[in-house]
């Protein structure tokens, strides 16, 4: 960890004004501090944003609003979340450990960095960390890597469970920068790696996520997050499925489906949703979950696994069909 400057502003404009190319915002610190210790990140200035007024969990006519500094555990337990959006609560509670969930913020969760072992080890090349150095994961240790949205430059998996559910629910993020405020669908926020895996999202330098907005979805109460992993807790997903269904007389009339642990970004599955709307069987719909997958040597099993994760979610919500 390198020496750094530190500021803890209590005003949003001050925070954004302080930020520059070589600064980093600190909320829960559960990603930033780790990566600073590993020398993956070495910001010249750390701006602690915990004093900013970015709190609050509110359900209103335009949906659910969650302040970016709300902690994962608090959001998961909030009545405005747990009842109407079980998929959000489950995704949060299946993440990390209670200690981490008590620290980690919602904004930070959406911006957490990949768990790729090469990204986190400065002794190895990594196009995401050091553009142009190469991607050892293509032929190296890649059991946990992505099969969707990959490129020859990067196959790192997006690590957030929450982001998968929010993409399924068509949530947006509110952003605040020196030029003012803007709102963007989360699905557009993330960038697949392509030739520029170091560019992970559309945040401008110094811009801050201030709020998450989940639009109303009356049938989001019939939703589930299935997370599949080697051990039962405290591990990232090998594959996960966030599914909500509009269920009438046991039949799925509409659905939202996104998957995690398999994509370089949270991966919405419109083809699966369309198949379900068209009345096709759960099996037929789930079989479309890995369309376009490009597995590597160690993660070909994820093709089947992600299909099964979607199928399992559908069966849990709608019973066998």
């Amino acid at each position, binding site marked *: 960890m390198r020496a750094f400057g530190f500021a803890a502003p209590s005003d949003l404009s001050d925070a954004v004004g302080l930020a520059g190319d070589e600064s980093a915002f600190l909320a829960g610190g559960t990603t930033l501090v780790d990566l600073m210790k590993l020398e993956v990140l070495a910001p010249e200035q750390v701006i602690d944003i915990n004093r900013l007024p970015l709190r609050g969990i509110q359900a209103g006519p335009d949906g659910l609003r969650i302040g970016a500094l709300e902690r994962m555990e608090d959001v998961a337990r909030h009545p405005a979340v747990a009842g109407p959006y079980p998929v959000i609560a489950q995704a949060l509670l299946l993440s990390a450990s209670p200690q981490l969930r008590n620290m980690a913020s919602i904004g930070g969760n959406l911006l957490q960095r990949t768990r790729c072992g090469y990204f986190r080890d400065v002794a190895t090349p990594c196009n995401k960390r050091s553009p142009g150095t190469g991607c050892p994961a293509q032929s190296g240790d890649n059991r946990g890597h992505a099969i969707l949205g990959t490129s020859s430059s990067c196959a790192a998996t997006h690590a957030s469970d929450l982001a998968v559910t929010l993409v399924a629910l068509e949530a947006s993020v509110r952003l605040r920068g020196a030029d003012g405020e803007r709102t963007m669908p989360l699905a557009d926020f993330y960038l697949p790696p392509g030739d520029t895996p170091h560019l992970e999202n559309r945040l401008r330098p110094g811009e801050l996520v201030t709020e998450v907005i989940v639009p109303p979805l009356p049938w989001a109460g019939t939703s589930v997050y299935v997370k*599949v992993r080697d051990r039962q807790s405290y591990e990232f997903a090998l594959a996960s499925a966030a599914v909500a269904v509009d269920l009438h007389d046991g039949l799925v009339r509409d659905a939202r489906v996104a998957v995690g642990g398999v994509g370089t970004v949270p991966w919405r599955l419109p083809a699966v949703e369309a198949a379900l709307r068209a009345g096709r069987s759960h099996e037929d719909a789930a079989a479309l979950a890995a369309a376009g997958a490009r597995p590597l040597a160690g993660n070909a099993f994820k093709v089947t696994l992600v299909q099964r994760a979607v199928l399992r979610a559908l069966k849990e919500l709608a019973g066998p069909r």
Partner: protein
Amino acid sequence: MRSVNREDGPVKVTGAARYAADHHPAGLVYGYVLTSTVARGTIAGMDTGPAERAPGVVAVYTPFNSLELRPDVRDDTAEPFAPLQDTRVRYYGQVIGLVVAETFEQARDAAALVTTRYDAERPRASFAAGLPAAVPPPGGTPETDVLAPGVASIDEALAASDVTVTATYTTPAETHVAMEPHATVASWSGDRLTIYTASQGVRLAVERLTESLGIDAAQIHVINPYVGGGFGNKWGTWAHTPLTAAAARALDRPVKTVLTREQVFTVIGHRPITSQTVSLGAAVDGTLLAVKNDGISSKSAANAFYEPVADLSLALYGSANLHVSRKIVTMDVPATTIMRAPAESNGSFALESAMDELADALGMDPLDLRLKNDSPIHPVSGLPWSSKHLEECYRLGAERFGWSRRNPRPGAVLDGDWLVGLGMATATFGASRSQASIEVRLRDDGRAVVSGAAADLGTGQSTVFALLAADVLGIPVDRITPVLGDSATPPAANAGGSGSTSANGPAVRLAAQAAKEAVVKLAAEHEKSPFRGEAVTYADGEVRGGDDAMPFGELLALLGVPEVEVTATSPRHPRREHAFRSFGAHFCEVRVNRWTGEPRVSRWLCVVDAGTIVNVKTARSQIAGGVIMGIGQALLEDLRIEPETGRFGNATMADYLVPVNTDIPPIDVDFLNYPDTLLSELGARGIGELSIVGAAGAVANAIHNATGRRVRDLPITLDKLL
């Protein structure tokens, strides 16, 4: 059987216990090791200038600016070569430098400024690629055959069997990940070294430092009363320890070096990769006629230890014909070393899986097959077992677990979306009694101090000291002060090979008995003694003579004798007439998701025949701990070596998976508690390793029963069950 709390429980849960890294002598500076980022080659140069100019840096040691250290030529589980004495790189993650600074952070940050140039060579880093060229270990016995009269070869015995099975079983590299990372604090006073270092035996560290530093053992004092787990990785003394001691000598300041979690993965050794091809032949009634196991283990080029993985096949089941072979694949990887039940843990996975496959082929219940081949004698030596009650373990366990409710047809039991299966396997581990010396001091405050250079890795050994001494001395357990982990105390047994209690237990009793006799003699002979000239006896902590009785503490206070000190030595057991082993039976239930394949262990029972159980409470934890580690071995643990680079692909605790609480079901443990009086009067054999042996086999067998899938390659992850 007695059951008491750990005597060191309160200091551990309150944080008062001081582990190696918790020592801060005045003037302390901090070391941070540099490690190699290629697996094989030579170091062409190191640029240490920026690090040397960094704030707080005291020294930067490299092969080009080294500390004097000598190689350790003893046969050991660690590395014989001394760090920084040459520019050779033997594996990825080898210690190639030490940065010393005023604070830990300064040392760590300066270390990141060092740049190293290598002349790299292609490493031998693929076990699979090395298998065809596997060779017998240098100096080892290539194979062992036991054949019935008139049988020419094991293959002939297999061909003559009614039913045979053959399969190859493989296990990955594993690492110990003990909770406490390795740490050493070294300080010199003149030519005398005091060192706090995480170790499974303080005398082991003394021996290594004697060699490395070229000084006499009498100049070295190693202190380490508390150890945060070992599992074999603190048996050897690794590079950071002599390096830290040498740096402290050169700088004339105390130095502390704590390995980071990532560094522990490579600076310390790991459990080897293994492959075993097992053939079993049996008569139609299940009688084993031939047992054949060709075992191959990975072996680091950096040290001498190798794992004879197939050898358990010579000891567990009776068979008229047995064959084992031993080969190694030499690799440019960190040291291969001992890890809980070395060889036998991996060996049992293959043998216990093969027994299940044989039972299938015979159409026999796997438990009946094991009962059929339970042998009253060691299959190779022919010696009778000293005390073996394995059949009782099987029968009691089957009854208690409900084994009769197992559906013999695989894949037949479904509970919701979960396939349910039952499995069982045999647990076993060798037993011995080494020499051990213990000192007992009876003090004038009525307490007794029991000392010996043993180690308590979290096992409960110090409580065993207290319990056994209290029994002999007839005083409450809380009036005993055990002192372990100090090289200035008598040479008790180190913590390894499940041999602590079997050796130290008898020595504690001998020393306590001798202390009683010494205080009786004092009472009868001391000129101020009220018992002088009487027939003095000792009972319940009191000296008695005539009609009077007096607690020993009061007597010592009255006589002005602060303490009575005796040392006793319990000799090594020669093991000439009997074979000694502990045994047990594992039973488990596993559930596998029918869609996504996750295997989850849902029930466990282990019935244990390990001789006398001194303290049920800590013994139970030992057995449960071995089962938990076995579940990790079965389902999770896999230290992945990149074949191209020799780098460990998952050398962090986030990526190297061990079980968490939710992975572990309630674990039921039952002890038969038959004293093994042929091993010692105490009759305790040892339980540190027993229960990991067979655990992975039991899980694999249950998964087969649940799903019909026979997975012969550990760990059994969900991708193998989809």
